[in-house]
């Protein structure tokens, strides 16, 4: 499978994968084992903003087209519109009830079918989505497409001809990775500072192309995705344990130190 656009002209066609997620800055409540959706607001997952910014920077340098793709219900269109307002050229929205309940693999399957409809040089995604924090979709998609993956990218150092050099945060430190295009990169939030969607951009976004697709359009068997096709199942959700209130110590530094050390050793037993 060659899904590389003709790079001879120097143009770089980038696909950005984005997700519209529950706003985790708000108080997320769990009831009966699932997240209470009532009254929640949704936002563009933050690492996806970094991915969009990276795509737009590349577009400025190399021309080409940036397409944003999302899977989700009607409301997910908001994040696509935001991407368009930031400067993305085209939106693709896979809106099909059968995608609901997909796990990372399900999303990756749908995306694999979606992105291969047109030639591309690079796929960018957030390193994880802000709602589930799984971080599986990007790597799984790279695998399905059989293209190289660089995860947790903190810098895109160079793009030339058929190669791209990226810096990633690895376990042991920064790694410099060179890949052959097309490739998939997932963005760390220190990759860049996402631009603000300008008011002009927001108004202009209305006139940009937005394609809405169903699974049928993509010739995907609904049984292979969504809750039906999920290989993983979330059996229970629990709200994070509430943190106990901190304790404040007042007095002379020597005395406080003694008191705190006593508590750490005897109560918290942190020195085992």
């Amino acid at each position, binding site marked *: 499978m060659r899904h590389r656009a003709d790079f001879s002209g120097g143009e770089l066609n980038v696909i950005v994968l984005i997700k519209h997620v529950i706003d985790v800055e708000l108080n997320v409540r769990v009831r009966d084992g699932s997240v209470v959706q009532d009254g929640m607001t949704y936002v563009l997952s933050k690492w996806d903003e970094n991915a969009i910014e990276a795509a737009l920077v590349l577009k400025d340098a190399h021309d080409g087209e940036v397409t944003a793709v999302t899977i989700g219900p009607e409301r997910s269109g*908001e994040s696509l*519109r*935001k991407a368009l*307002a930031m400067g993305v050229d085209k939106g693709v929205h896979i809106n099909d009830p059968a995608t609901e309940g997909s796990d990372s693999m399900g999303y990756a399957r749908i995306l694999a079918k979606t992105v291969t409809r047109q030639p591309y040089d690079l796929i960018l995604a957030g390193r994880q989505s802000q709602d589930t924090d799984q971080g599986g979709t990007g790597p799984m998609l790279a695998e399905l497409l059989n293209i190289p993956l660089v995860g947790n990218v903190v810098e895109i150092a160079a793009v030339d001809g058929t190669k791209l050099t990226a810096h990633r945060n690895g376990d042991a430190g920064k790694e410099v990775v060179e890949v052959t295009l097309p490739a998939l990169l997932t963005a760390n939030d220190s990759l860049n500072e996402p631009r*603000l*969607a*300008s*008011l*002009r951009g*927001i*108004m202009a976004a*209305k006139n940009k192309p937005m394609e809405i697709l169903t699974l049928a359009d993509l010739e995907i068997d609904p049984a292979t995705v969504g809750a039906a096709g999920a290989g993983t199942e979330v059996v229970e959700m629990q709200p994070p344990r509430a943190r106990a209130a901190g304790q404040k110590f007042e007095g002379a530094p020597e005395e406080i130190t003694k008191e705190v050390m006593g508590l750490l050793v005897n109560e918290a037993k942190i020195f085992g």
Partner: protein
Amino acid sequence: MTSLTNDDTLILETIDRFIEREVKPQVRELEHDDIYPADLVETMKGLGLFGATIAPEYGGLGLSTTLYAKIVERIAAAWMSLTGIFNSHLIMAAAVQRFGTEAQRREFLPKFATGEMRGGLALTEPDCGTDLQAIRTTAVRERDHYVINGTKTWISNGIQGQIFALLVKTDTTAEPRHRGMSLFLAEKGKGFTVSRKLEKLGYKGIDSAELVFEDYAVPADRLIGGEEGLGLKHTLSGLELGRINVAARGVGLARAALDESLAYAQVRKTFGKPICEHQSIQIMLADMATRVKAAQLMVESAAAAYDKGERCDMEAGMAKLFASEAALTNATDAMRIHGGYGYSKEFNIERYYRDAPLLCIGEGTNEIQRIIISRQLVERNPV
């Protein structure tokens, strides 16, 4: 009440982020040192704010007044001076859009919209502000141009701006006096100089200047609308929008004073409890919040009427009067609630306290506002 569209939500989100990222971190330094926020102006240009209410066909965004007022409220809550940089500019633009000739619109509005050309309103003179019909700046026609002489003062953006809607007398003998008044688009050039920057209590960062016109020649086609004698009418009709805008600033300031007081009152403790549990503080907080809510609703309703093309001169005046007084009272109450810290330059309260009085003076003093409201009441309700 008015519901926001998706675009409106995105726009306000952009504004909020701009404020958090770029305005708040440097507002105190810029304000105290009275530094013109050149980098913020560049960002505002990029965002499109200088074309916010200019029609899309002339390169603007064509935002509704309702949305525009919300933008102004938010920015004013962070730093009122910033709103002055694009506000009187947009009122100048509105005068061109509503009353200018098609050639004037095509020539100027696109440049105003990008912020490439910025400016404001030059109405006030050293000897008169409220009584604009008493202005002494004159324009005398000579063949294809007018020669202008006079002095304008307190002109916002006077130093940084390049072009101003300039109110003059083309006929000093006309009766009634306004028949002899005209509004020009005056671009800086020979004979048009800035004589000084005015130092002031608050509203720092934005430049207020005295402008001097000495045999300043302006081409006749810069007379807005091309017809003499309509200047005061054009000016006053722009003030409706101006009042809604000042009212929105008042809401922003009143809300900022409330928000900070509300937070502070919950953490500051005296006599063993947070001060928000002392009744006298509770009374102030309740009154402050009530003022904010009422002012917000008045601005929304005046803006909605304006957007629908309904008459709203009195409503805009009421919103301006109430919201500016709310800002002043809330700023004072915030200072009481913050105690000594309210007086400190390390907090924002002292800035609100210095900024708020301007709202009671500018865009028609509140005394005049009351007179106009009362006149309109009688006019609309004859017995």
